[in-house]
């Protein structure tokens, strides 16, 4: 429960999401790239990172990520909280264990 409680702290912040896929759990931060030009092109195209070079438009974000692409996806605090309550019977009593 302590692990999920820490995830809840992170996802409580703006633009923070979580997903789990076949590679594991990921923290997803949806802040935009600072190198994006006003017209949508890359401002550092010639020296852009490898991950940008390798990104394919074949089945990309434009086509729409759906829940099928993830084992689990949490868009916000409420979505993760709901999952925690379902996963841990005593979730709402977790701060009372010393009492």
């Amino acid at each position: 429960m302590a692990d999920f409680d820490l995830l809840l702290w992170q996802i409580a912040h703006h633009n923070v999401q979580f997903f789990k896929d076949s590679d594991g759990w990921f923290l997803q931060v949806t802040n935009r790239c600072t190198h994006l030009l006003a017209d949508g092109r890359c401002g550092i195209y010639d020296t852009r990172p490898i991950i940008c070079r390798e990104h394919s438009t074949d089945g990309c974000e434009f086509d729409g990520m759906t829940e099928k692409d993830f084992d689990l996806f949490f868009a916000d605090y409420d979505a993760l909280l709901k999952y925690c309550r379902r996963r841990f019977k005593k979730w709402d009593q977790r701060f009372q264990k010393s009492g």
Partner: protein
Amino acid sequence: MKTIPIRAQMTPETKCGFCTNTKCCGYITQQIPGPRSMEDFDHLLWQISHANVEVYKDEDGWFLLINNRCTKLLPDGRCGIYETRPQICRDYSNDWCEFDEPPEQHFELYFRNYAELLQYCRKRFKHWERRFDQKKEA
């Protein structure tokens, strides 16, 4: 007319009221594996390219510092979910916090943006600028 100065006492109970922008609720951190190779640093450069993303290393290791504010903050700086707030918020002490001292004083390395990390990469790796050429040859 006489002005009577009133000095408000700062105590642990009132201290947060002096902190005007609720510094401690304005970010998250995420520990990451310590980068070693040029590919590792290239990946970090992608992450730090994004708005409000910083990277630091301290005695506990490497961390992403994401300066996004908590969505539960009320306009007056109080917590909107105080009764059910996460454990990390419960454990946080304002005894010696961001209000007293910038946390970066304890960072061994601190990169606030792409340009700063890029400069470090160029210094650390002699062949940094040729890293994409090597990949093609390989």
